[in-house]
């Protein structure tokens, strides 16, 4: 398993040598969404606290780095950490409200969605941060501005982000923290009876997850050169973040990555080809059908199913 992982990473490192620019773009999105999914997986998968508002952290992270860069000339390489800290702070606030007052299941989902929506509406109405039009970043191609002439730089950054989040999740998984999170997901009351401070560990999970997601906001902003409140804080992005670990298998290291390798190309290609033939939105139908199929046939996701196959 470890060897397979190392081999796959080596392969991915060499891959850009052979890729067309369009294929490169698809891989960048695969890695980036796998990264977001993995960050979500820490609180949503391992700890089982279903945040459906993770877009808020992407938005906070992206806006922080972009504003620092545009208004104060701070390089996004520093701004990304400021964004991560602010996203972590918002995560801590949402976590505190949700966990302290014992919001479970749907109620926690609603709380996270509500916070993301509040952020979206606030940002849309504050002209100092671009209002409803959002922020545009001028292309300079200067690496100091987190901008690169060569697409491959983005490829490697996105790959690094995915590996970073996966590394953190792997560390958590093996330690006491990880076992506690799984126990909380399975039965919070029993975990508490066995000495687990559920509130504390859920807070940790939420803060790690939201800060990591915030880190990704900078990549989003400086890869796409624009931030629109309806896109980066919107429910559709939150759904994009969640859906990959669900398809691949929540609470597993491979799940979010596998889910992104399945879903991202499907989304991109169907948007590309079906969009050309005038069938706008058809990729959403494809998504929907795939999701229904996974829920029906692989309720634990693709990776646990594959693992069970290979063990036999």
């Amino acid at each position, binding site marked *: 398993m470890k060897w397979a992982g190392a081999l796959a990473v080596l392969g991915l490192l060499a891959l850009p040598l052979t890729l067309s620019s369009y294929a490169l773009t698809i891989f960048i999105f695969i890695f980036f969404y796998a990264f977001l999914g993995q960050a979500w997986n820490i609180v949503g998968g391992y700890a089982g606290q279903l945040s459906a508002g993770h877009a808020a952290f992407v938005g906070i992270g992206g806006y922080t780095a972009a504003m620092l860069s545009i208004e104060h000339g701070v390089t996004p390489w520093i701004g990304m950490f400021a964004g991560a800290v602010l996203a972590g702070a918002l995560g801590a606030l949402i976590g505190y409200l949700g966990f302290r007052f014992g919001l479970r299941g749907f109620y926690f989902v609603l709380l996270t969605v509500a916070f993301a929506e509040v952020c979206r509406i606030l940002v849309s109405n504050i002209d100092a941060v671009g209002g409803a039009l959002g922020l545009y970043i001028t292309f300079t191609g200067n690496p100091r501005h987190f901008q690169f002439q060569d697409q491959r730089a983005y490829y490697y950054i996105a790959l690094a982000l995915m590996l970073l989040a996966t590394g953190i999740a792997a560390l958590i998984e*093996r*330690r*006491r923290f990880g*076992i*506690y999170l*799984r*126990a909380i997901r*399975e*039965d919070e*009351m*029993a*975990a*508490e*009876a*066995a*000495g*687990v*401070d*559920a509130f504390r560990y859920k807070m940790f999970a939420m803060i790690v997850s939201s800060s990591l997601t915030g880190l990704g906001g900078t990549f989003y902003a400086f890869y796409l050169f624009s931030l629109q409140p309806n896109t980066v804080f919107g429910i559709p992005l939150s759904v994009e973040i969640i859906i990959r670990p669900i398809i691949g298998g929540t609470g597993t290291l491979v799940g979010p990555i596998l889910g992104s390798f399945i879903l991202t190309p499907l989304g991109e290609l169907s948007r590309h080809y079906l969009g050309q033939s005038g069938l706008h939105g058809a990729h959403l139908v494809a998504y929907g059908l795939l999701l229904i199929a996974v829920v029906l046939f692989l309720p634990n996701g693709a990776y646990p199913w594959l693992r069970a196959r290979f063990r036999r």
Partner: protein
Amino acid sequence: MSHALLDVRGLSRRFGGLQAVRDLSFSVDEREIVALIGPNGAGKTTVFSLLSGFLAPDSGDMRLGGRSIVGRKPHEVCALGVARTFQIVRPFPKLTVLENVLIGALVRHPRRRDAEAHARAVLDEVGLAAKAAQPAGTLTLSERKRLELSRALATEPRLLLLDEVMAGLNTTEVERTLELVRAINARGIAVLLIEHVMRAVMSLASRIVVLNYGERIAEGRPDEIANDRRVIEAYLGEPDVDAAVP
């Protein structure tokens, strides 16, 4: 007065219009086995929830080794040395049997390797070692009951709260659990148990506390309790007044 391990004084808890526990006092000494019995709805499980920090009492005090545990959260009570099982067992179904017990063992052994060694020792003691690698969801009811006990035991408590660990077991399994509880107690762990299997209560407990409608109606040695008029009334109903007239 002797130093009781657990000292409960004037404990009360109300749910809306229902007084679940009323002015309850009792104690458990070091190394003692005490049984809490009473008809369904007498408030026994509420007492456990109060003792383990899942519910807060409206009034009264609970002391463990002289320190009040009122207002402590469940994980704090556990760290102080009170472990409970649940009447309806609550395993972590997707975790392995070993991982289930490991969660409890991590309370005293923060390093995973030490905790795992301790968890394996506990599984050996309760006879679940062969199932260590299996997901807990695949166990039989009797095995789940033992897993529930193992997880509590792995936290190395001073006082173990057992909520009907024999319910639903066959005679052989009850016998086995009796042995196990005796062995645990022999290692110096005090036990407070809720039980409907009277044979178990009578053979294990040195003292019995009887609850009815949240109140203590009797307390004493098993032989005293078995002949107590109030206890018999509580279980069988009051004798018909007319029929009692000769």
